[in-house]
Protein backbone atom coordinates (compact mmCIF):
# COMPACT_ATOMS: atom_id res chain seq x y z
CA UNK A 1 0.00 0.00 0.00
CA UNK A 2 2.67 2.45 1.11
CA UNK A 3 5.01 1.35 -1.68
CA UNK A 4 2.23 1.72 -4.21
CA UNK A 5 1.51 5.30 -3.05
CA UNK A 6 5.19 6.13 -3.30
CA UNK A 7 5.42 4.74 -6.83
CA UNK A 8 2.33 6.71 -7.81
CA UNK A 9 3.76 9.97 -6.39
CA UNK A 10 7.05 9.23 -8.11
CA UNK A 11 5.33 8.62 -11.45
CA UNK A 12 3.31 11.82 -11.19
CA UNK A 13 6.42 13.83 -10.24
CA UNK A 14 8.30 12.33 -13.16
CA UNK A 15 5.48 13.15 -15.56
CA UNK A 16 5.26 16.74 -14.34
CA UNK A 17 9.05 17.11 -14.49
CA UNK A 18 9.15 15.60 -17.96
CA UNK A 19 6.34 17.79 -19.19
CA UNK A 20 7.99 20.88 -17.70
CA UNK A 21 11.37 20.01 -19.22
CA UNK A 22 9.86 19.30 -22.62
CA UNK A 23 7.79 22.49 -22.74
CA UNK A 24 10.70 24.56 -21.42
CA UNK A 25 13.00 23.11 -24.11
CA UNK A 26 10.51 23.97 -26.84
CA UNK A 27 9.42 27.30 -25.42
CA UNK A 28 9.12 30.01 -28.07
CA UNK A 29 9.57 33.73 -27.56
CA UNK A 30 6.88 35.51 -25.56
CA UNK A 31 4.44 37.63 -27.59
CA UNK A 32 4.95 41.20 -26.45
CA UNK A 33 1.39 42.35 -27.26
CA UNK A 34 0.33 41.48 -23.74
CA UNK A 35 3.57 42.54 -22.03
CA UNK A 36 3.69 45.66 -19.95
CA UNK A 37 6.44 48.07 -21.06
CA UNK A 38 9.28 48.55 -18.57
CA UNK A 39 10.09 51.94 -20.11
CA UNK A 40 8.17 54.40 -22.26
CA UNK A 41 10.17 57.07 -24.06
CA UNK A 42 10.77 58.97 -27.28
CA UNK A 43 13.13 57.81 -30.03
CA UNK A 44 15.57 60.67 -29.36
CA UNK A 45 15.73 59.97 -25.63
CA UNK A 46 16.51 56.30 -26.19
CA UNK A 47 19.29 57.01 -28.69
CA UNK A 48 20.76 59.71 -26.45
CA UNK A 49 20.94 57.27 -23.54
CA UNK A 50 23.12 54.89 -25.63
CA UNK A 51 25.27 57.59 -27.21
CA UNK A 52 25.99 59.30 -23.88
CA UNK A 53 26.81 56.19 -21.86
CA UNK A 54 26.49 52.90 -23.66
CA UNK A 55 27.37 50.73 -20.64
CA UNK A 56 24.78 52.43 -18.44
CA UNK A 57 22.14 52.24 -21.17
CA UNK A 58 22.94 48.55 -21.71
CA UNK A 59 22.23 47.75 -18.08
CA UNK A 60 19.13 49.92 -18.00
CA UNK A 61 17.37 49.02 -21.27
CA UNK A 62 18.79 45.81 -22.75
CA UNK A 63 16.46 42.81 -22.45
CA UNK A 64 13.72 45.14 -21.24
CA UNK A 65 10.40 45.81 -22.98
CA UNK A 66 10.64 49.36 -24.27
CA UNK A 67 7.80 51.40 -25.75
CA UNK A 68 9.05 54.08 -28.14
CA UNK A 69 7.22 56.88 -29.91
CA UNK A 70 8.66 58.45 -33.03
CA UNK A 71 8.38 59.25 -36.71
CA UNK A 72 9.18 56.62 -39.33
CA UNK A 73 12.36 57.40 -41.30
CA UNK A 74 12.13 54.31 -43.49
CA UNK A 75 10.46 50.94 -43.82
CA UNK A 76 12.69 48.23 -45.28
CA UNK A 77 12.18 44.63 -46.30
CA UNK A 78 8.43 44.78 -45.72
CA UNK A 79 7.85 41.78 -47.98
CA UNK A 80 11.12 39.87 -47.90
CA UNK A 81 12.12 36.69 -46.14
CA UNK A 82 14.19 38.38 -43.42
CA UNK A 83 12.31 40.30 -40.72
CA UNK A 84 10.76 43.64 -41.69
CA UNK A 85 12.45 46.74 -40.35
CA UNK A 86 11.13 50.14 -39.37
CA UNK A 87 13.65 52.84 -38.53
CA UNK A 88 12.50 55.76 -36.39
CA UNK A 89 13.89 59.27 -36.82
CA UNK A 90 16.29 60.83 -34.34
CA UNK A 91 18.16 64.16 -34.30
CA UNK A 92 21.19 62.31 -35.68
CA UNK A 93 20.67 61.46 -39.35
CA UNK A 94 23.27 58.67 -39.10
CA UNK A 95 21.54 56.95 -36.19
CA UNK A 96 18.01 55.77 -35.50
CA UNK A 97 15.88 53.28 -33.62
CA UNK A 98 15.68 50.10 -35.71
CA UNK A 99 12.54 48.12 -34.94
CA UNK A 100 12.45 44.51 -36.13
CA UNK A 101 9.02 43.05 -36.93
CA UNK A 102 8.23 39.44 -37.76
CA UNK A 103 7.15 39.23 -41.43
CA UNK A 104 3.42 39.76 -41.75
CA UNK A 105 2.97 41.70 -38.51
CA UNK A 106 3.86 45.13 -39.82
CA UNK A 107 0.84 47.31 -40.74
CA UNK A 108 0.83 47.62 -44.54
CA UNK A 109 -0.06 51.32 -44.39
CA UNK A 110 3.05 52.35 -42.43
CA UNK A 111 5.28 54.69 -44.40
CA UNK A 112 8.00 57.27 -43.88
CA UNK A 113 6.73 60.33 -42.01
CA UNK A 114 4.05 58.50 -39.99
CA UNK A 115 4.03 59.00 -36.23
CA UNK A 116 3.98 55.61 -34.54
CA UNK A 117 4.22 53.85 -31.20
CA UNK A 118 6.22 50.61 -31.09
CA UNK A 119 6.92 48.14 -28.32
CA UNK A 120 9.88 45.77 -28.47
CA UNK A 121 12.74 44.16 -26.59
CA UNK A 122 15.84 46.34 -26.65
CA UNK A 123 19.01 44.43 -27.56
CA UNK A 124 21.52 47.31 -27.60
CA UNK A 125 23.27 49.82 -29.86
CA UNK A 126 25.21 48.64 -32.92
CA UNK A 127 27.33 51.75 -33.47
CA UNK A 128 30.78 52.46 -32.14
CA UNK A 129 34.19 53.58 -33.36
CA UNK A 130 33.92 54.57 -37.02
CA UNK A 131 30.59 52.81 -37.48
CA UNK A 132 27.27 54.58 -37.38
CA UNK A 133 24.60 52.53 -35.67
CA UNK A 134 21.07 52.11 -34.42
CA UNK A 135 19.45 51.22 -31.14
CA UNK A 136 17.83 47.86 -31.84
CA UNK A 137 14.35 46.79 -30.77
CA UNK A 138 13.30 43.23 -31.62
CA UNK A 139 10.11 41.16 -31.58
CA UNK A 140 8.30 44.46 -32.10
CA UNK A 141 4.55 44.93 -31.96
CA UNK A 142 2.46 47.97 -32.74
CA UNK A 143 0.76 49.84 -29.92
CA UNK A 144 -2.67 51.38 -30.48
Amino acid at each position, binding site marked *: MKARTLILIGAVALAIGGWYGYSEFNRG*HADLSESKADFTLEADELLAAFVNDEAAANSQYVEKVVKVSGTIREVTNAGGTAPANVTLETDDEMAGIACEFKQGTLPAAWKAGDKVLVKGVCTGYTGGGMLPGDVILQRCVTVE
Partner: protein
Amino acid sequence: MNLLKTFALSLALAPLTLAAQERYMTRTGHVDFHSSTPIEDIHADNDKVTSVWDATSGAIEFSLLIKAFTFEKALMQEHFNENYMESNKFPKATFKGTLKGVAADQLAKGGSYQVTVEGTINIHGVDQPIKTTGTITVDGKGGIRAESKFQVKPEDHGIKIPGAVRKNIAETMDLNVRMDYTKMP
Protein backbone atom coordinates in the same frame (compact mmCIF):
# COMPACT_ATOMS: atom_id res chain seq x y z
CA MET B 1 60.20 74.64 -49.29
CA ASN B 2 59.48 70.93 -49.52
CA LEU B 3 56.78 71.27 -46.93
CA LEU B 4 55.21 74.08 -48.91
CA LYS B 5 55.28 71.97 -52.04
CA THR B 6 53.59 69.06 -50.30
CA PHE B 7 50.98 71.42 -48.93
CA ALA B 8 50.26 72.91 -52.36
CA LEU B 9 50.11 69.45 -53.92
CA SER B 10 47.69 68.13 -51.33
CA LEU B 11 45.49 71.19 -51.84
CA ALA B 12 45.48 70.59 -55.56
CA LEU B 13 44.64 66.92 -55.09
CA ALA B 14 42.01 67.43 -52.41
CA PRO B 15 39.00 67.61 -54.76
CA LEU B 16 40.20 64.44 -56.47
CA THR B 17 40.40 62.41 -53.24
CA LEU B 18 37.01 63.68 -52.14
CA ALA B 19 35.41 62.70 -55.41
CA ALA B 20 37.00 59.25 -55.19
CA GLN B 21 35.42 58.46 -51.82
CA GLU B 22 33.12 55.53 -52.55
CA ARG B 23 31.63 54.42 -49.29
CA TYR B 24 28.85 51.91 -48.87
CA MET B 25 26.91 50.91 -45.82
CA THR B 26 24.12 48.80 -44.40
CA ARG B 27 22.51 48.59 -40.99
CA THR B 28 20.27 45.65 -41.75
CA GLY B 29 22.95 43.20 -42.85
CA HIS B 30 22.46 39.49 -42.26
CA VAL B 31 24.73 37.04 -40.44
CA ASP B 32 23.64 33.56 -39.47
CA PHE B 33 25.45 30.66 -37.90
CA HIS B 34 24.76 26.99 -37.96
CA SER B 35 26.05 24.12 -35.90
CA SER B 36 25.20 20.64 -36.97
CA THR B 37 25.80 17.42 -35.03
CA PRO B 38 23.97 14.07 -35.05
CA ILE B 39 22.39 15.10 -31.71
CA GLU B 40 21.05 18.53 -32.61
CA ASP B 41 21.09 21.40 -35.08
CA ILE B 42 21.56 24.90 -33.80
CA HIS B 43 20.76 27.89 -35.96
CA ALA B 44 20.42 31.62 -35.30
CA ASP B 45 19.90 34.68 -37.47
CA ASN B 46 20.93 38.28 -36.99
CA ASP B 47 19.41 40.84 -39.38
CA LYS B 48 20.68 43.93 -37.62
CA VAL B 49 24.32 43.93 -38.68
CA THR B 50 25.89 47.29 -39.39
CA SER B 51 28.76 47.53 -41.88
CA VAL B 52 30.71 50.17 -43.76
CA TRP B 53 32.87 49.43 -46.78
CA ASP B 54 35.13 51.99 -48.38
CA ALA B 55 35.46 50.70 -51.93
CA THR B 56 38.31 53.12 -52.67
CA SER B 57 40.65 51.95 -49.93
CA GLY B 58 39.11 48.50 -49.46
CA ALA B 59 38.64 49.06 -45.72
CA ILE B 60 35.63 47.16 -44.38
CA GLU B 61 34.06 46.96 -40.92
CA PHE B 62 31.23 45.05 -39.30
CA SER B 63 29.55 45.27 -35.95
CA LEU B 64 26.71 43.20 -34.54
CA LEU B 65 24.99 42.64 -31.23
CA ILE B 66 25.24 39.12 -29.84
CA LYS B 67 21.81 39.55 -28.24
CA ALA B 68 20.32 40.33 -31.66
CA PHE B 69 20.83 36.69 -32.76
CA THR B 70 17.38 35.12 -32.90
CA PHE B 71 16.88 31.42 -32.22
CA GLU B 72 13.64 29.58 -32.75
CA LYS B 73 13.75 28.32 -29.17
CA ALA B 74 13.87 30.94 -26.43
CA LEU B 75 15.76 28.67 -24.02
CA MET B 76 18.52 28.07 -26.57
CA GLN B 77 18.85 31.83 -27.06
CA GLU B 78 19.12 32.35 -23.28
CA HIS B 79 21.79 29.66 -22.92
CA PHE B 80 23.72 31.05 -25.90
CA ASN B 81 23.82 34.52 -24.33
CA GLU B 82 24.34 33.57 -20.69
CA ASN B 83 26.46 30.42 -20.72
CA TYR B 84 28.52 30.68 -23.89
CA MET B 85 28.79 34.20 -25.28
CA GLU B 86 28.50 36.04 -21.93
CA SER B 87 26.83 38.80 -23.89
CA ASN B 88 26.38 41.08 -20.88
CA LYS B 89 30.17 41.27 -20.68
CA PHE B 90 30.84 41.10 -24.44
CA PRO B 91 27.76 42.62 -26.14
CA LYS B 92 29.25 42.95 -29.64
CA ALA B 93 31.18 40.99 -32.22
CA THR B 94 33.20 43.04 -34.69
CA PHE B 95 35.34 42.64 -37.79
CA LYS B 96 37.84 45.09 -39.20
CA GLY B 97 39.83 44.40 -42.33
CA THR B 98 40.38 44.86 -46.03
CA LEU B 99 38.45 43.65 -49.04
CA LYS B 100 40.38 43.02 -52.27
CA GLY B 101 39.32 41.96 -55.74
CA VAL B 102 37.02 44.73 -56.92
CA ALA B 103 37.81 48.34 -57.78
CA ALA B 104 35.50 51.23 -56.95
CA ASP B 105 34.93 52.09 -60.62
CA GLN B 106 33.72 48.55 -61.38
CA LEU B 107 30.75 49.06 -59.06
CA ALA B 108 29.03 51.41 -61.50
CA LYS B 109 28.12 48.57 -63.86
CA GLY B 110 26.60 45.16 -63.26
CA GLY B 111 28.72 42.11 -62.58
CA SER B 112 29.91 39.56 -60.10
CA TYR B 113 33.35 39.67 -58.51
CA GLN B 114 35.28 37.13 -56.47
CA VAL B 115 36.91 38.91 -53.56
CA THR B 116 39.11 38.13 -50.58
CA VAL B 117 38.60 39.58 -47.14
CA GLU B 118 41.31 39.64 -44.54
CA GLY B 119 41.36 41.15 -41.08
CA THR B 120 40.62 40.66 -37.41
CA ILE B 121 37.44 39.23 -36.00
CA ASN B 122 36.54 39.86 -32.38
CA ILE B 123 34.10 37.49 -30.72
CA HIS B 124 33.65 37.09 -26.94
CA GLY B 125 36.32 39.76 -26.47
CA VAL B 126 39.00 37.68 -28.23
CA ASP B 127 40.70 38.84 -31.47
CA GLN B 128 41.60 36.31 -34.16
CA PRO B 129 43.07 36.92 -37.61
CA ILE B 130 40.81 35.68 -40.39
CA LYS B 131 41.03 35.34 -44.15
CA THR B 132 38.14 34.29 -46.33
CA THR B 133 36.66 34.66 -49.80
CA GLY B 134 33.39 36.15 -50.93
CA THR B 135 31.36 37.48 -53.80
CA ILE B 136 30.29 41.00 -54.63
CA THR B 137 27.30 41.18 -56.94
CA VAL B 138 26.40 44.47 -58.58
CA ASP B 139 22.98 44.71 -60.21
CA GLY B 140 23.75 47.98 -62.01
CA LYS B 141 20.83 49.77 -60.34
CA GLY B 142 22.76 50.77 -57.26
CA GLY B 143 22.24 47.46 -55.46
CA ILE B 144 25.43 45.85 -54.19
CA ARG B 145 25.34 42.53 -52.41
CA ALA B 146 28.34 41.08 -50.58
CA GLU B 147 28.27 37.44 -49.53
CA SER B 148 30.70 35.21 -47.73
CA LYS B 149 30.82 31.92 -45.89
CA PHE B 150 33.44 30.99 -43.34
CA GLN B 151 33.96 29.01 -40.19
CA VAL B 152 34.69 29.97 -36.61
CA LYS B 153 35.81 27.71 -33.76
CA PRO B 154 34.25 28.70 -30.40
CA GLU B 155 37.38 27.57 -28.55
CA ASP B 156 39.54 30.01 -30.57
CA HIS B 157 37.60 32.82 -28.93
CA GLY B 158 37.78 31.52 -25.38
CA ILE B 159 34.22 30.21 -25.42
CA LYS B 160 34.04 27.26 -23.04
CA ILE B 161 31.72 24.40 -23.88
CA PRO B 162 31.08 22.01 -20.99
CA GLY B 163 31.94 18.33 -21.63
CA ALA B 164 28.33 17.27 -21.05
CA VAL B 165 27.10 19.13 -24.14
CA ARG B 166 30.30 19.03 -26.22
CA LYS B 167 28.78 16.45 -28.56
CA ASN B 168 25.68 18.65 -29.10
CA ILE B 169 27.72 21.55 -30.47
CA ALA B 170 29.87 21.37 -33.59
CA GLU B 171 33.64 21.99 -33.35
CA THR B 172 33.28 24.68 -35.99
CA MET B 173 30.36 27.00 -36.61
CA ASP B 174 29.37 27.74 -40.22
CA LEU B 175 28.79 31.43 -40.71
CA ASN B 176 26.94 33.08 -43.58
CA VAL B 177 27.26 36.77 -44.26
CA ARG B 178 24.99 38.70 -46.63
CA MET B 179 25.14 42.50 -46.87
CA ASP B 180 22.99 44.62 -49.16
CA TYR B 181 24.98 47.83 -49.33
CA THR B 182 23.75 51.24 -50.36
CA LYS B 183 26.01 54.14 -51.25
CA MET B 184 26.69 56.65 -48.52
CA PRO B 185 25.94 60.26 -49.37
